[in-house]
């Protein structure tokens, strides 16, 4: 007889405000519901404020992606007035965004994903002792090294933005601040040191060698080639991940979305696709189509918002909380973002599939999407960004770091959109301005795609679908579920960080 039970899992390490409900039959997930339990409401907060206020408010949505939201807000305002940002403004904006990416990718990979290999669930695994030595929470040698090395890279944002944290240096038309060449020369040293560490520790080889890995067979050959490859974080991800079966977990719908990102300057040695370094597109399996921004919509059938038939394009969407009615049908504060009416996953793997990357296209054809491929794409994304970062930094320095801004004029009326790739995937800000004030602001975050609930047709969101068929060996420690969810790198709650008392500790009481 089939044994069915419901598991409610507060995935508190993924996000304090994300909960999963799983239906498990004979130890395998047969249905899943992902609930965002916090109303964010930034869109409502912005309505009625000054046209430029999104530049200051939206970076507070996320403590990790603040530069990303700043960039998206600035691009939305660029679009409203139709301004063309000068080349050095484009380069410096891009560099700041890429710094956030290469820091986030490494921190997620090592501090949030690989750390699960030190989970006691694997205590009988032959690689467990090595995993603990490397990735034990707050103590593993790789954990400490990753924190130490990734702290320095944000100095580049501080130089470009003139301030850290919460730099608000991106404005419509470019940058509000032009860094000095002498400061940018210092950035070159910081960037070079980060690349050297990344190659030694994370890749175990040069970026050029990694870029030659263009198929599953080439990946196997790379792994066998040298001890430094096997001992790197990528090497360990592959060795342990394959042994734990992560290349067979977390398939999902098999649809992928990238808005495209990192506009190419008019004159540059960097090469991209469609005027961007990161290509835009939509893929069904390995088959890629051009992106149509009009095909994006948000459904709220299963979300706690006022109802609409089908889905609305974000330029027409609303964020009106509606927590009553249809109890049991609505279960999340996250809306269901959809493309061509269907779900799509976004993130580093989607970027690589849409770009036609030969390695990830081959992995997709042979293995389908899976948790290991997602994390491999994330942890190797810096290898795709670091060389171009050096190109753009050198181009800015060579041109004297001048001409970073053109005056866009007053912003009184109009509408626009900023669409980029955040570290976690597709991010869009849709804005409408009337009489110099924000009339409408809609934001779709990457987690709005990956962590979406069911849509108007009852179709599961990407990671809900990815969980189907997952074996759960221990309901009290569902490490398999954690691997899958974290391979999407969900982000729901990092706008609020209070210090919470988790257990009794001493304190000193003072009089206010």
């Amino acid at each position, binding site marked *: 007889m089939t044994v069915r039970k419901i598991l409610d899992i507060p995935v508190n390490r993924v996000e304090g405000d994300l909960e999963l409900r799983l239906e498990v039959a004979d130890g395998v997930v047969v249905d899943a519901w992902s609930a965002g339990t916090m109303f964010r409401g930034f869109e409502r907060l912005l309505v009625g404020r000054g046209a430029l206020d999104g530049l200051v408010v939206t970076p507070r949505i996320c403590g990790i992606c603040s530069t990303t939201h700043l960039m998206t807000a600035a691009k939305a305002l660029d679009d409203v007035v139709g301004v063309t940002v000068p080349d050095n403004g484009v380069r410096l904006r891009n560099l700041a965004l890429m710094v956030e990416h290469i820091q986030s990718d490494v921190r997620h990979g090592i501090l949030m994903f690989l750390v699960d290999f030190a989970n006691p669930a694997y205590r009988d695994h032959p690689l467990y002792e090595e995993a603990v030595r490397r990735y034990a*929470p*707050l103590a593993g040698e790789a954990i*400490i090294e990753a924190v130490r090395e990734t*702290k320095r890279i944000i100095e580049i944002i501080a130089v470009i933005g003139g301030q850290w*944290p919460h730099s608000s240096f991106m404005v419509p038309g470019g940058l509000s601040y032009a860094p000095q060449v002498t400061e940018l020369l210092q950035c070159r040293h910081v960037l070079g040191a980060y690349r050297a560490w990344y190659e030694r520790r994370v890749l175990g080889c040069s970026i050029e060698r990694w870029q030659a890995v263009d198929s599953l067979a080439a990946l196997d050959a790379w792994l066998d080639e040298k001890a430094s490859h096997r001992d790197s974080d990528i090497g360990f991800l592959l060795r342990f991940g394959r042994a734990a079966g992560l290349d067979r977990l977390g398939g999902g719908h098999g649809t992928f979305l990238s808005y495209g990102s990192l506009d190419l300057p008019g004159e540059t040695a960097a090469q991209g696709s469609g005027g961007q370094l990161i290509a835009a597109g939509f893929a069904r399996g390995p088959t890629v189509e051009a992106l149509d921004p009009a095909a994006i919509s948000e459904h709220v059938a299963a979300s706690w918002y006022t109802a609409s038939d089908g889905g609305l394009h974000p330029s027409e969407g609303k964020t009106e909380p509606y927590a009553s009615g249809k109890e049991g049908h609505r279960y999340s504060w996250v809306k269901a973002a959809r493309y061509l009416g269907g779900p799509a996953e976004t993130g580093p793997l989607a970027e690589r599939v849409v770009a036609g990357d030969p390695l990830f296209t081959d992995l997709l054809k042979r293995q389908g999407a899976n948790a290991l491929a997602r994390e491999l794409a994330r942890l190797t994304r810096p290898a795709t960004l670091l060389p171009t970062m050096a190109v753009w930094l050198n181009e800015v320095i060579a041109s004297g770091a001048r001409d970073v801004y053109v005056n866009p004029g007053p912003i009184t009326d109009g509408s626009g959109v900023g669409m980029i790739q955040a570290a976690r995937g597709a991010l869009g800000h849709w804005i409408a301005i009337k009489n110099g004030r924000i009339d409408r602001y809609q934001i779709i975050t990457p987690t709005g795609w990956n962590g979406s609930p069911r849509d108007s047709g009852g179709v599961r969101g990407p990671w809900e679908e990815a969980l189907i068929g997952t074996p759960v060996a221990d309901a009290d420690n569902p490490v398999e579920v954690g691997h899958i969810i974290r391979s999407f790198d969900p982000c729901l709650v990092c706008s609020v*960080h209070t210090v919470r008392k*988790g257990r009794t500790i*001493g304190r000193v009481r003072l009089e206010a």
Partner: protein
Amino acid sequence: MPRPARIICVGNRHHPDDDLGPRVHALLAGSKLPDGVELVDGGLCGLDLLRVVEGAGRAVFVDAVEGFAPPGEVVMLGREDVAALAEGPWGHDAGLPYLFHLLPQVCDGEMPDLMLIGAGCPAGAAVVAGIAARALEEAVRP
């Protein structure tokens, strides 16, 4: 040259449950600070404040706290108190406990004295003013 004391205010001014740090920052930013005291708007950052802490002789964090005392009551915690709250792996919701825990292992240069002054939110204006005064007092303490 002595290392400065830094008052680092952390939180989200758009969330009433987490706006203590920004309100204290706003109050102190409008006043003359004692010599050797620097003020930092730490915003939403956690580990990314490592570079701000390094180089300081003392780092006085100001942030909202939960569960230590009734709202409005001032709480002061030492480095080990806060570090002890870091449990399990780092995540998007990781905050100051991880920074306090990891700092001795990743700090470049001499370790600063660390402390956290906070209160449960929402906090009234008198509490904000009291915490600002206390932060200054701790920053200049010999």
